[in-house]
């Protein structure tokens, strides 16, 4: 078929020419609109949070770093080393090695306890399945979110670290906030 260049010509619509009031508006209009908000809030003062001196409060159900718990009355660990958290963990970051309680060394209330309980926080996705899986409410997701470290191996939290009170607690949001 013979080629007819006329068929492929497209017409382009051009914008208005630069300059004039319209030009000025186009150049600064949006900026001014933004500045309107700025100037409107000037009186309120700065609201920057001075992290790490100040911390953002979290919602109560925020899933932060895990915590292991003890019974308040006996001081025994709630964890019996059942390893269900490890089974539930989609990131495979929990390792539990159980051992048996003896009359001399009683660590938990059941027959067994977790001799080794490690969470590799560099792999954890904070999904909270471990908390859901735990039949004894021994592990819960805490509120801490400050977990950065200089060394990967330091991100493997051991049982003692998980049982201990965190140094700094992340503040909770108040009711209705």
């Amino acid at each position: 078929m013979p080629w007819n260049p006329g068929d492929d010509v497209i017409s382009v619509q051009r914008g208005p020419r630069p300059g004039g009031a319209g030009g000025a508006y186009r150049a600064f209009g949006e900026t001014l609109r933004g500045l309107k908000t700025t100037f409107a809030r000037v009186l309120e003062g700065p609201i920057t949070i001075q992290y790490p001196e100040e911390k953002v409060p979290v919602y109560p159900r925020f899933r932060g770093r895990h915590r292991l718990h003890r019974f308040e009355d006996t001081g025994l660990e709630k964890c019996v080393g059942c390893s269900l958290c490890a089974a539930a963990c989609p990131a495979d970051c929990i390792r539990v090695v159980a051992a048996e309680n003896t009359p001399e060394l009683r660590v938990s209330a059941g027959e067994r306890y977790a001799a080794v309980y490690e969470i590799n926080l560099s792999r954890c996705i904070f999904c909270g399945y471990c908390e859901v899986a735990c039949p004894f409410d021994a592990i819960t997701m805490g509120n801490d979110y400050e977990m950065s470290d200089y060394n990967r191996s330091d991100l493997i939290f051991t049982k003692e670290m998980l049982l201990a009170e965190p140094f700094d607690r992340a503040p909770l949001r108040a009711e209705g906030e």
Partner: protein
Amino acid sequence: MTIDPIDPRRVPRFDHGSRVPGWDEAVDLTKDPAEVPDPATTPVPDDLRAAIEAHIAKYPERRSATVPALREVQERYGWCTPEGIEQAACVLRLTPAYLISVATFYDMLETRPVGRNTIYVCTNISCSLCGADELYTTVRDEVGDDPEFNVRSFECLGACDIAPMASVNGTYVGPISLDEVPTLVQQVRDGAEPLPDKQLARRRSVDPNAASRS
């Protein structure tokens, strides 16, 4: 890893209501396994052996004589003692565990020491409708903690016609009124016949048709 030492007494343990001996028992790991006793190391009294062998002869398989053999053991030792069971096991060529399994199944075979005089008070429906429960408590109270007695409330003894009744050393007696209990217990203590005129052996048929004939 450091773990705070915790006083084990502070740990709550289950408070259970097991009343079956054995449920809470672990084995003694220092004992040897209980295999079929070797005749070379298990002395069996001759008369016991003869009695058990006589039972064995009645059946096509030796094992059948288990219950009769256990009865022999009980008769000889008062209850199925571990030694007695081992002796019977040796003659029967079975393990003592097998015999204890059978012995604990049957009510009349005792696997704990008991008194020599057995009084089974029937407390099943027919008898208890006629006051067997009171009879049982009365007999218990009368006997007290006399170690010579083995008083048990028993399931139906098959003598509801003389309810409330008891089997005293194998002799069926009834109906027993509560005020006869002291006499009965005394008779057993003395080794006398229990309530002779109330024994089943002397009872005549109550069927009016049958009675009219003889």
